[in-house]
């Protein structure tokens, strides 16, 4: 296969990330666990350097490369940048958690970097095979991460569930891809889109294939009825791993949804829209209603994730550029909020104490008014109360579906967000209105405390002026 050298530059961030992951693997092999601190620093530096490379490359044009299997466009640039930056925070938060639990090992960072590489490939894939490779690279690393705490029964169970259901989802996705291949004769997303526009395609077979694609996407995003793995994995995995799973992979899954449903099968929107409405509405209802009954914060946030996925799908299913950019805004804001939410659990935890029950947050405003305020910001933002970022995320997706005339769905969405507000309020109630049971001071290291504050204040800042980020999302799909 021939390709010009200039094309290689489109994948420069991925190549760099791959090289760095291998270097870190080598350091691990040579220095063993003695080199753990340098591995941590090196991983952070690779993520930051990759982010810089992506940022530098934004101006260097966009297009397809590697024979049309790889794309560099605004969507991939922005999402990859977000993935890298969020993972910088994730590794930072995770390290203090891992250190306290003798999980501070080199493997975690190698897996994290390879997983990040998988996500970046997903964001740039323009071919079913590339997409699938990226997805599997990401997922396999995640399965291994969940299982890293070998002596924990819950974590192992979570890893098994995640692996089996994830493999099943991948199978569904592949089956759907093969059907689409069967009717369009191509695996390249651009060719599929072209074939759907120009050829007479059997619509029954198309919608049959779409069902399986949507199941795959639904699994990876965690949409109802394919959400069953999500609460168990979020709950069972060590919090640092939950934090990793709950943030950047959602951005990658969003990229996958856009590449498949919009770039590839945009012509079939009439066929997948109804299915997506089902997924979305069910996710919002089940996610919000079931979250109310949870006493474990990680499980509650898992169900809240499910409901947020419903909102993200709302933007996607509107089928307009406005809706896609709204969904993109939502997924970025969501991962920022989720980052903060799980980060707070890590901040509260210490050796031998997980702080993952809602009651562990009792009286936080008296123990640490500042971090209670940070959590308050995050929770009100997740509930979608202005002037916080979560409000504009909900605002944007609801606006986009009202514009396409789906007002009843919009009403379901807003009613569900009121139900959702209840359990976020409950956490705030626990923090602000209850007396503390635990009087220990927070032990988290300074860098983590600063990072969490930056994280939450960013949510507030995005709420006060969401214009810039929204403008980026809007140009992505214009």
């Amino acid at each position, binding site marked *: 296969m021939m390709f010009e050298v200039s094309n290689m530059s489109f994948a420069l961030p991925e190549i760099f990330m791959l090289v760095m992951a291998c270097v870190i693997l080598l350091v691990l092999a040579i220095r063993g666990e003695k080199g753990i601190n340098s591995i941590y620093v090196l991983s952070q530096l690779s993520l930051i350097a990759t982010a810089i490379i992506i940022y530098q490359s934004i101006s260097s044009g966009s297009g397809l490369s590697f024979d049309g299997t790889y794309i560099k466009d605004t969507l991939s640039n922005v999402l990859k940048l977000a993935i890298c930056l969020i993972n910088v925070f994730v590794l930072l938060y995770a390290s203090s958690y891992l250190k306290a639990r003798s999980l501070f090992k080199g493997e975690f960072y190698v897996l994290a970097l390879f997983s990040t590489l998988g996500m970046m490939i997903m964001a740039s894939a323009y071919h079913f095979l590339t997409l699938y490779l990226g997805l599997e690279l990401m997922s396999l690393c995640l399965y291994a991460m969940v299982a890293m705490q070998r002596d924990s029964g819950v974590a192992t169970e979570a890893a098994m569930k995640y692996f089996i259901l994830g493999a099943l989802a991948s199978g569904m996705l592949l089956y759907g891809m093969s059907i689409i291949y069967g009717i369009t004769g191509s695996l390249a997303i651009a060719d599929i889109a072209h074939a759907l526009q120009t050829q007479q395609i059997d619509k029954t077979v198309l919608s049959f294939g779409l069902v399986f694609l949507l199941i795959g996407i639904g699994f990876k995003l965690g949409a109802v009825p394919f959400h069953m793995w999500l609460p168990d994995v979020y709950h069972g995995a060590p919090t640092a791993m939950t934090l990793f799973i709950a943030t950047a992979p959602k951005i990658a899954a969003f990229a996958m949804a856009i590449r498949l449903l919009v770039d590839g099968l945009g012509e079939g929107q009439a066929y997948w829209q109804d299915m997506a409405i089902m997924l979305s509405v069910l996710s919002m209802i089940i996610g919000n209603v079931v979250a109310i009954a949870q006493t474990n914060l990680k499980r509650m946030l898992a169900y809240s994730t499910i409901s947020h996925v419903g909102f993200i799908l709302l933007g996607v299913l509107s089928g307009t550029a406005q809706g896609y950019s709204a969904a993109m805004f939502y997924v970025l804001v969501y991962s920022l909020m989720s980052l903060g939410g799980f980060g707070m659990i890590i901040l509260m935890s210490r050796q031998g104490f997980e702080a993952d029950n809602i009651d562990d947050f009792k009286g936080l405003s008296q123990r640490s008014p500042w971090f209670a305020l940070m959590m308050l910001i995050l929770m*009100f933002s997740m509930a979608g*109360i*202005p*002037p916080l970022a979560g*409000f*504009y995320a909900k*605002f*944007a997706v*609801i*606006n986009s579906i*009202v*514009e396409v005339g789906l*007002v009843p769905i*919009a*009403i379901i969405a*807003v*009613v569900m*967000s*009121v139900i959702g*507000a*209840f359990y976020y*309020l*409950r956490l*705030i*109630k626990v923090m*602000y*209105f209850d007396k503390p049971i635990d009087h220990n001071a927070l032990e988290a290291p300074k860098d983590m405390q600063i990072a969490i504050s930056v994280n939450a204040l960013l949510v507030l800042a995005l709420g006060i*002026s*969401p*214009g810039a980020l*929204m*403008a980026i*999302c*809007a140009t992505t799909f214009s």
Partner: protein
Amino acid sequence: MFSEFPLLSLIIWLPILGGIAVLINGDNNPWARPLSLLVSAATFVASLGLYIGFDSASYQMQFVEQAPWIKSFDINYFLGVDGFSVPLIILTSFSTLLVVVAGWEVIKDRVSHYMAAFLIMEGLMIAVFSALDAILFYVFFEAMLIPLFLVIGIWGGPNRVYATIKFFLYTLFGSVFLLVALLYLHHVSGSFSILAFHDVSLSMAQQTLLFLAFLIAFAVKIPMWPVHTWLPDAHVEAPTGGSVILAAITLKIGGYGLLRFALPITPDASMALDWFVISLSLIAIVYIGFVALVQSDLKKLIAYSSIAHMGFVTLGLFIVFRIFANSATGSGAELAIEGAMIQMISHGFIAAAMFLSVGVLYDRMHTREISAYGGVINTMPVFGGFAVFFAMANAGLPGTSGFVGEFMVILAAFQANFWFAFLAATTLILGAAYTLWMVKRVMFGDVANDEVAKLTDINQREFIMLASLAVIVLAIGLWPAPLTDVMHSSVEHLLTQISQSKL
């Protein structure tokens, strides 16, 4: 001079930034109270500038400020006031000043948080009254819930968690429909400007759905029967300051919302469904009046009387359609709207005064049960004088502001339908009954127990607080012209808007 200066931004952001400054200062800082007082006093003085600089001959929006805020959503920082908003803004800044003074000695726990919450809320409420961009309105409308939620939850009574979550969810539930309605209007009109919403033409089906969305949002806020149940709970549990703001301002936002959104945007649906709102208003006036009669808790009694009084506001706003139907000239329609507005302002002052009076008693006795009191006037003669005066105003005694609004609405109701007026007028009996009976049980008679015997009369701080309110209540009652003048052209404009069909 005033048209150039961003006065509205000043009175919105001064208290918000002041509140943040108080918050950062922390609890141990002796400056928390004086700083709050300074900020709220400065805001109050600045807000008077609105009244002075306001050209009451024009119905146009004044002190307009417009700047793009979120371009990709087409949301603007668009502020302006008309004759409806100016009195409400001044009411807001005055009430906050009172709350700061009222909490001066009483709040001992987390003072800076308490003061900051009210200052920030003041800015948000003023912004609600002056926002001319629908989303800007919505953002402030919702954001207001956060400080109030915390105020009730942190400084409230024993059952505060239940009350504050109920309050939050009820109002949030109402307002999300408003959001969908606003988004839909943007879809139809292509702009988020409320003034553009006023001009867009809508079919009957569209108007009906929009009207219902507005009604849900604002009926919860007012609150109208049967979605009023959060209010007594919230009032009972809230600290005095929270009750004052709740009664004086947040309820008015509901009435203001109907004036600003429902009536001018969906006039035909408002006309078609006026029977519904009028029925609910009359139920609120009569039925809730009876409910108030049997309350054994002082704050609950005042809370129910608030609901009954707000029934006059909604009644006044919606009988105009009947008045138009009865006479071509529509004489009396103006009286109805102005009556509703005056009722809002006057209730703001009277309810604030009533809750402050209860607060004065509660601070000394730590109970709100009517049966725990008796013969208070013997030990607190000065306070007793004020309390009886405010109770009279609450019952609608001529010469007080409580009389003016109710009388105007009842008078206008005669133009609409005799039975409306008849039922509305029962409040003159019911209101007098529950208020005077309460006064009799709490204030008069023999000294009931040792605790009452040990009561000390109000101090200078409390005297100033109550005296200033008494002066205002009396002033509006005797000479309401300055208030009606300011809103006159806006009322006329509103009437032309609602008399033109948008179909």
